[in-house]
């Protein structure tokens, strides 16, 4: 009779842990939701004054270098560069770093933009390998293309930093397309802030399902598959609640490298992008905060909720799993690398709240969530968990999730309103419910795998292949 008793105790402890985890996580998410509702709606109203438009003719608008690391992006690279060339910004340089592509990425750029090979001076401000070749466009003087050996995204970004001459640089993924005024909107907050803004992240939206023309989204539509639709809702929730909420608390941990502005000198001071983790963008935010705090330099790391960048999301579960495992592995690596900041009051709200939350709830919590998703129903089926506790679990794990997702769709509707048709909003609301019934649990499982890989000491970068929107892009092009 000892074994069933022990089993009961184990299940009891586990169930209480799961419930506590969901309770704490949901409390935090609710807090973030309330803060974000206020911060994002105020930001939207401020942006309504359209002061950012004045930057386009202002003499004091700082120049930006747009760095696009590209590896085997032959299908999308031309559209991406076209969108960047067409972006409304008075002084920009576009630097595409071809990270040793084995496809025709470089050739397509060369033929479309009439690239001319040159032997330019290369100064290594941050450590990386020497470029193989350098090109400048005869048609577009602001475009520089660097060919380098395949050494990964952080090295490609560092190469771009070394070539850049502007005080700020913006990282843009090769499969992403900026809205025409996105750079102006992103810089508006930086220019208006009395503090030195070293990072400013923008909103990422899913381009799957949209139509592209001349480097711009010409028609917005929702993706066709359920995986992509669930991701659409998830991205809205992440950017509208997560990023905006943490930014308002001054505890930004994650800035999406797909579209993020950095202060170049500060990044160089932090040693550039590092290959220590598989998510160089998250690592950079923590490195910057640590370096600048240690030097006693006042700085600001912000999220701006109105500039939008459209990017391609994984179209299949297999690719989604790869992406989420990598993100989770990178998060764990970053927190481990900067563990000295955890609960350290010197780093303010990031050290006291942001990093601990990401470690416990987003990091370890993903394992708890994944195990709980399987264990709690089993415990209920075996009669080891009473019905009210099971229902409470469902309420916290699923029901409350629908509330948060629907609230994020509501926030999207109040603020950005990027989805024009009523049908879009209805579908988004339906998927705000559906994503909590299977998708979230699957993602939790992928993330738990990422944590496991971290514990096993794996550092593999899992490449996500782009297939979904590419065909549409190629057709339109």
């Amino acid at each position: 009779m000892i074994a069933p008793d022990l089993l009961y105790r184990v299940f009891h402890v586990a169930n209480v842990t799961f419930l506590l985890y969901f309770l704490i996580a949901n409390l935090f998410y609710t807090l973030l939701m309330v803060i974000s509702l206020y911060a994002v709606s105020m930001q939207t109203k401020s942006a309504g004054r359209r002061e950012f438009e004045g930057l386009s003719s202002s003499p004091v608008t700082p120049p930006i270098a747009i760095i696009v690391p590209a590896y085997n992006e032959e299908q999308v690279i031309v559209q991406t560069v076209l969108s960047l060339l067409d972006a409304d910004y008075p002084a920009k340089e576009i630097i595409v770093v071809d990270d040793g592509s084995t496809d025709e990425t470089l050739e397509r750029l060369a033929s479309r933009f009439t690239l001319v090979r040159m032997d330019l001076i290369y100064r290594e401000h941050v450590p990386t390998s020497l470029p193989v070749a350098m090109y400048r466009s005869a048609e577009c003087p602001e475009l520089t293309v660097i060919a380098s050996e395949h050494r990964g995204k952080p090295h490609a970004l560092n190469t771009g930093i070394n070539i850049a001459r502007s005080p700020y640089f913006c990282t843009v993924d090769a499969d992403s397309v900026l809205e025409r005024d996105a750079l102006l909107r992103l810089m508006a907050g930086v220019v208006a802030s009395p503090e030195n803004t070293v990072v400013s992240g923008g909103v990422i939206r899913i381009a799957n399902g949209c139509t592209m023309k001349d480097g711009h989204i010409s028609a917005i539509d929702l993706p066709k598959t359920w995986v992509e639709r669930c991701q659409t809702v998830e991205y809205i929730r992440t950017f509208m609640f997560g990023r905006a909420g943490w930014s308002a608390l001054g505890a930004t941990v994650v800035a999406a490298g797909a579209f993020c502005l950095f202060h170049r000198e500060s990044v160089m001071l932090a040693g550039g992008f590092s290959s220590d983790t598989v998510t160089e963008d998250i690592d950079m935010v923590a490195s910057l905060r640590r370096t600048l705090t240690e030097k006693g330099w006042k700085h600001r790391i912000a999220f701006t909720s109105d500039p939008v960048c459209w990017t391609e999301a994984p179209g299949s579960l297999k690719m989604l799993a790869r992406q989420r495992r990598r993100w989770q592995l990178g998060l764990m690596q970053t927190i481990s690398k900067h563990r000295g900041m955890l609960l350290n009051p010197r780093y303010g709200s990031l050290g006291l709240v942001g990093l601990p939350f990401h470690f416990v709830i987003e990091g370890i919590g993903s394992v708890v969530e994944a195990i709980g998703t399987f264990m709690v129903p089993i415990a209920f089926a075996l009669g080891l968990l009473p019905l009210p506790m099971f229902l409470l679990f469902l309420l916290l794990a699923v029901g409350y999730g629908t509330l948060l997702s629907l609230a994020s769709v509501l926030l999207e509707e109040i603020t950005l309103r990027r989805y024009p048709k009523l049908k879009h909003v209805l579908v988004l609301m339906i998927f705000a419910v559906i994503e909590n019934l299977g998708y979230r649990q699957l993602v939790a499982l992928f993330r738990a795998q990422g944590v496991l890989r971290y514990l096993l000491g794996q550092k593999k970068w899992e490449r996500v292949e782009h297939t979904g929107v590419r065909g549409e892009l190629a057709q339109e092009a």
Partner: protein
Amino acid sequence: MTGIQDLLVIVLWLSIAVVCLDLAFVLFVLVRRAVRHRYFLRKDAARARFVPALKVILSTKIAPNIAIERLGPIRGRAERDALSGSLVAAITVENCTRATDLLVHLGFVEEWAEEAFGRNRALALIRHVHTDEPLDERSSWRWRLAALYNLRCFAVARAAAVQKLGRLAPEYADAFIEEAKHDPSPEVRHVNINNMGRSSSALEYLLPELASAIEERNGIAVRTIKAAIVRAEISNPDVLVGFLQHHSERVRFLVVDSIREVCSKPREVPLSAADFPPAMYRVFLQTLAKDACTDVRARSAAVIRHFRDPAASSVLCRLMRDENEFVRLHAVRACADGYYSALVPEICERLSDQRWRVREAAVKTLMHLGTRGIRALADAFLTTKDRYATEQIADELQRTGALLDVINSLDSGYEPSRIATEVCRKMIAMGKSSFLAEMLGKHQSVAKRERLMDLLSTTHAPYTTAVLDWIASHPTDPLAIAARSREPGGRIAFAAEAGGGK
């Protein structure tokens, strides 16, 4: 069991609450969509009606009450928003007074002023504009609740109102701008500062604000104030002179930099010393060019260049030899003006500067100085033994496309052709042959390609070899044909015969 039953009841109630909230969110989104859809339909229709009518009204002198009659009935929020938006968007320097009168008669000015300053103060301000009735000291109790009014939820609406008020005719705008200066919220003051471009007394307010911003006392970004100073009408330059001698070096630096921006604005006739007030001219040449702060000295150079007189040349010459690299850098950049072409030898000295930024600036400046500068650059490139100087020149020749001009000069007369050939040879000797090789493959002139082929025959750089191989593998390429006929056993012909190429 009671505990479990209680928990069940709580969970059920919580579930019901969550579902109700879910439904409320859904309903809110749907209702909002419908309401907004209706609002924008009406607004678009109203805009289509008002815009042509306003065009006529604002271009002719019509009394406001007649203009309002012509606009027809204005019903509901959507139509009022469409009208105010169209009117504000249509404001120009010429129609500013007529548009403002119309906005006043339509009640928009009162509405915005009330939003920005409260009802009583708004009415007092409007009375003050209309009748010149003196304003009381700010009696508004609102500013005493600064902490509350600093909250963004209140400040955002005030900022929007202040922005619109700043676009009115000066007699109104000045009064509202003056009032908004005292707003406790940095967001409102930021908007107000942006509005100040047309105010005649803007500098008198902006410069002290700049000093406060530097000391982080007013919560406004230095860039915002600087941009406003650059835009402002400079009616009283003496204020600027005072701040050019401010005790804080950061203030001096930013004021000098703002003047630099003002001077850099595009204009038909270039500035000269006569365009500057004598006091300012003297301060720049005698004080700021010798300032203890390197940033001030550096930025002064960019203003002094606009004096275009011997005194300015002499100061720039001295600054180009300053001990600080940034001063040298800015002084060299400042010489990128035809007037200073006599300073070419001094600029050439900077080609061997120990700092690459200065070398780069020297190359760019020489490129800017026309034939004399480019000739000096080519001479320096061919004669200097300084590796860094030649690297910098080679870099700029490629970046600016000047190397293409060099290639085009390969067969244009004896002297230009000789210099061009030497430049190409030096590039090849430095290992910077990629651009030349690229032109070997792509240049439209076969004669120039042949010249390049001759020059490149000494190099075995992989890229050059690849280009030669490519030409060899394309027998119909004009250069391949020319090479075969000219030199049957040559490199290209040999490769082509051996089936070379990649």
